[in-house]
Each structure stands twice: as C-alpha cells, then as structure tokens.
C-alpha cells in the first residue's frame, strides 16, 4: 500500500515569507508526527496529533510554527515569517496507534530552504 507522502519535496522561499508543508499519512493511521532534521543532526520532534487534535506541540520552536489536521488525516505544517534558521528537512511520520511500540513510518520529507 501507499506510504506516507509529503508535498512539496523541495521548497525555496525568501526570508519573511509564509510556507505550508503537507503530509498525507498512511490510510487508517490515527497518529501523525512532525519532525525537523537540520544538517548533520538527527530528526527532532515538533508536534504530534492523535486524530484531529494536537496532543503535544512542545517541540515547536516558537509561535511562528503551527500545524493542523482538521479531518484527522492530512496535516499541514505552517511556518510564518520564515527565517534562515528554519532551513531543514521537515519529516512527517504516521503510526497505527499510540503505543511506543507502534512503528512510526516516515515520509521522504520536504526540504525547506530559506534564502
């Protein structure tokens, strides 16, 4: 079956602009996660959804970052007033359930470059 898909695969924007990154999870997966991977680092947790609600957004770096999942499936990560430090690969993952043992399946990521 289809895996996690993310669009766009690459996004180049200018400092100060607004961007939206989309994630389509695996069908039937209730949990959805966003991570950010900066150059030379491992993925860093941003936010987690259980259904439509953000269960934990403690990883969001500041209030310029916001994410939604209005129908419990597709999610959009929104970044306002982008800064050069936001440049990274943004990874989305989904899992069937909520347990730590439920494998998180990752998408290919969106590479965001802020000029």
């Amino acid at each position, binding site marked *: 079956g289809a895996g*996690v898909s993310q669009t766009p695969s690459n996004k180049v924007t200018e400092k100060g602009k607004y961007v939206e990154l989309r994630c389509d999870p695996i069908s039937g997966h209730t*949990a959805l*996660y966003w*991570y950010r991977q900066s150059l*030379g*680092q*491992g*993925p*860093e*947790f941003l936010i*987690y959804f259980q259904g439509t609600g953000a*269960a*934990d957004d403690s*990883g969001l770096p500041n209030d310029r970052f916001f994410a939604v999942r209005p129908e419990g499936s597709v999610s959009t990560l929104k970044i306002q007033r982008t800064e050069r430090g936001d440049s990274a690969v943004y*990874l989305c*993952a989904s899992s069937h359930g*909520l*347990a*730590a*043992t439920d*494998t*998180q*399946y*990752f*998408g*290919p*990521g969106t590479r965001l470059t802020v000029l």
Partner: protein
Amino acid sequence: DQQVKQNSPSLSVQEGRISILNCDYTNSMFDYFLWYKKYPAEGPTFLISISSIKDKNEDGRFTVFLNKSAKHLSLHIVPSQPGDSAVYFCAATDSNSGYALNFGKGTSLLVTP
C-alpha cells in the same frame, strides 16, 4: 541537550564482515529503543527495536543489544552487504509518554565490496 548520542559519525566495513554501530543515552526514563536506516532523499525506515525488559533482539542479519546499566545499545549487522550502506539513527522513547522519538545524530555506514 542531546539525550541520545551516536559518537561515530561514520564507519567503513568490508562486505561479509560485522558492522557494529553504537549508541548511548542519558535519560533513565527511556525504556524503548529503535534503529532506523536512511538512504539519501528518503525518509528513515524502521529497522529493529528493543524494549528495556530485554537485553537482545534479533531479526535476520540484525541484532540489537541493550546494556541498561551502561545506558548503551549497539546494532550488529552480520554479514554486512553493500546495500546496507546508509545512515543509521538510534532513537529512544519513554513509553509512558508514548510518542516522541529522540534521535541521535546518526552514523553513516559504508560497506565496501
């Protein structure tokens, strides 16, 4: 601060030999550990995991060992194959929180023919 550490950025191994990738963690609340493998331009792919109630888990050529007292785990790949060349990430989580994975910086493995 980095709660999961992979201190070897890279490792080169000959085909057919054993690859050993190491990982250390600092948070004693972590009780579930995973290894992910990542090829360029792809997302991380789950490889193998281990619960803190075990000290070893094996899946084919891949074995993960956990030493709780040392807060150390390792991934053994035997025999190594050129297709194993990738970046390997160690990750850990506290199952009471259940969801956020804490990743190391990764080790780039190169298996040479």
